[in-house]
């Protein structure tokens, strides 16, 4: 029998399958018939926010850690120790506390996580320009052609990526490798954390046959229910149905299901997945109804949306505010500005005019602000030419504040309305 190619997950040495690495003697061996012929990878960081917190504080390493919070917050991420007690993400904090009373609960530090994410993504974009961002901790990579470019196969580069991230950032990732996005994503979700799973062409049908249809990205509770009514619970049920039947029953998604059941997925990795909007939201600790309180929250949102626009060198035309009432009724209102904007002051003035129109339906439990119709236009530090001297003065104030903040920190200077 022909021996399968193998790679050591510790040192990256490639060899023909044996129980230990011939170089470093590690037993962490990855072997597969198609080890060197698959190009599409899905990379997912393990318990990202919680792992970052652990990497920053050695005392947390053996404790259950939950990132989330606020008075009625939810679990954003929980570490694998917390998961043993049954804690899951998106679970209300009070439920998590009941399940795992010893858990250390840490409020999320999104800006810090974003920094770490940026480091990880910069490592990925060094491997290939074809990186599609799914979330801060998740991406698809198309590594075809890397052999010519780097002289290394995709699997070798991915192992190097995983070891680098672990040694430099003290974080682990799970990697899935397959012939398309669907199989890669599926692979990475198996054996988490710190896993490297391959689904090859020869085994894909065996692999997916026994899986429940809930594994399919996009199949949520309502579709699952509908599929169950038609006694489709696993892929093996799905594959028995022909294309016409599926299309009739589930519309265009039926066609996709038919393909997925056969391990086919024609999506490609889309890099520069240019964002359509930049948005932030706050869930208040207590429902807010006073104009002053809401305006303060709006200013905080305006500053943080503006900060992201500024760091990314993006401007936008449409400003939308989103408000959620205590009964979870959501309403939104938007305004499209003639000229693209990015400054916190402009965002605030526009969104405030929108907020005032909605004040009568207060109190609110959540407020969101987003900017869409985006254009790339790096105006950092540049004064917009304007004949409106009042507006120029406001711009100058904001530029000066940004300068001071970049030198002395974000909280070194604030406008009165943020107090």
């Amino acid at each position, binding site marked *: 029998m022909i021996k399968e190619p193998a790679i050591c997950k510790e040192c990256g040495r490639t060899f023909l399958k044996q129980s230990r690495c011939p170089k470093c003697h590690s037993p962490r061996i990855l072997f597969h018939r198609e080890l060197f012929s698959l190009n599409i990878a899905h990379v997912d960081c393990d318990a990202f926010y919680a792992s970052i917190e652990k990497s920053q504080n050695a005392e947390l390493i053996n404790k259950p850690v939950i990132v989330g919070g606020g008075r009625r917050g939810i679990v954003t991420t929980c570490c694998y120790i917390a998961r043993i007690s049954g804690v899951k993400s998106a679970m209300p904090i009070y439920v998590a506390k009941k399940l795992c009373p010893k858990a250390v609960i840490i409020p999320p530090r999104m800006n810090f996580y974003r920094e770490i994410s940026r480091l990880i993504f910069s490592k990925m974009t060094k491997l290939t320009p074809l990186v599609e961002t799914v979330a801060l901790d998740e991406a698809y990579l198309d590594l075809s052609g890397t052999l010519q470019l780097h002289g290394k196969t995709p699997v070798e580069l991915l192992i190097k990526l995983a070891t680098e991230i672990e040694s430099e950032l003290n974080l682990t990732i799970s990697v899935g490798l397959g012939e398309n996005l669907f199989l890669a994503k599926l692979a990475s979700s198996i054996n988490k954390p710190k896993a490297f799973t391959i689904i090859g062409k020869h085994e894909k049908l065996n692999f997916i046959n026994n899986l429940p249809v809930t594994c399919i990205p996009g199949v949520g509770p309502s579709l699952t229910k509908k599929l169950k009514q038609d006694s489709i619970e696993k892929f093996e049920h799905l594959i028995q149905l022909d294309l016409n039947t599926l299309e009739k029953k589930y519309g265009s998604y039926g066609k996709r299901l038919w393909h997925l059941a056969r391990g086919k997925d024609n999506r490609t990795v889309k890099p520069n997945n240019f964002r359509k909007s930049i948005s932030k939201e706050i869930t208040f600790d207590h429902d807010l109804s006073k104009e002053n309180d809401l305006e303060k929250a709006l200013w905080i949102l305006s500053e943080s949306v503006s900060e992201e626009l500024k760091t990314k060198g993006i401007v936008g035309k449409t400003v939308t505010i989103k408000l959620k009432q205590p009964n979870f009724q959501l309403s939104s209102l938007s305004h499209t500005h003639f000229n693209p904007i990015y400054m916190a002051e402009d965002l605030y003035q526009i969104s405030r005019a929108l907020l005032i129109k909605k004040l009568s339906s207060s109190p609110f439990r959540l407020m969101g602000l987003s900017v869409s119709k985006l254009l790339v236009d790096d105006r950092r530090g540049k004064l917009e030419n304007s004949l409106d*001297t009042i507006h120029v003065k406001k711009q100058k104030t904001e530029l000066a504040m940004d300068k001071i903040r970049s030198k002395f920190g974000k909280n070194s200077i604030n406008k009165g309305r943020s107090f």
Partner: protein
Amino acid sequence: MKASIEQTELFKAMGRVQSIVEKRTTIPILSNVLIEARDDQLFLRTTDLDIEVLDKVKAVVEIPGALTVGANTFHEIVRKLPDGALIQLTGNAGSNQLEISASRSRFFLSTLPKEDFPVMASEDYENEFVAAAKVIKRLFDKSKFAMSSEETRYYLNGVYFHPYEEGGSHFLRAVATDGHRLAQIDVDPPEGMKLFSGVIVPKKTVSELRMVLETGSDDITISVSNNKIRFSNHNLTLTSKVVDGTFPDYKRVIPVNNKKKMKVNAADFSEAVDRVSTVSSDKSRAVKLSLSSGKLHLSVNSPENGKAEDELLVDYSDEPLEIGFNARYLQELTSQVDSERVEFSFQSSGDPALMQDMDDTGAIYVVMPMRV
């Protein structure tokens, strides 16, 4: 109330006063017109709480009285009655109805009591003066294109109307800007005008002003206070609140050192800009002007659509200059000009440009360049 009036007169007056009535309003009485019959006249009054219009027409009043009725319906009825018919208006206080009859047509409209109609409080006007309609028309007509519509810059949503003094000369001045272009129009101070603090006349008032300027006598009485402005001729009175805000210090942005001067035929220039901007995309309407001795080269480069070029002979003798503008702004600017030739003056590609009508020194226009 009982009065009779000639159809043509009433139709004209209703056409004027109903134009400020908001189509959608949450306060029902704001959809109504207040009709008062007294002293052989019919007084018609409408308001949107920011502007109030009062018109008067001759009528035969048998029983004086007042009531309010839906302005739109009333206007429509009057319009559909035969030209020149004698219309009889009879208010019935008991049934809250207004009967409108002319020859064999009869209409009954429900009314709301006159006491509920919000009449604008009278004001102590600190300054009152009389000016010719065409002078006031010039001030507002030539500046209004530059007003901003952005709600957030409420202080730019109107025309800044103020007296101005420079080197011993006095003017009455109107300025409007949206941050990208600015218009400054001067007229000689009307007789009897004292200094008053400037007011921002709101956008809607500026557009409704036409009804005062285009009807009745040539002379307009203007009354100004800190909160209100009133324009009236012998028939019609338009009273408006002013924008509660400070107009930016516009004098700082009007260039004084623009040495590079280009004289061009306004119509030729506007047409050339229009031609080349056909290829520009919606997103950026930038047109590049490249000036060299005696020649203006216009070009538009749109990554999606392609390129366009045009050339004009101009009066220019300074060093070569390249500068970009929004095509729409340039066209709007040149359409303000009455004479054949205009003069543009520039400093550099990043500084605002000045445009002047060569036969009218009382009007100057400023436009911001854009990167091309």
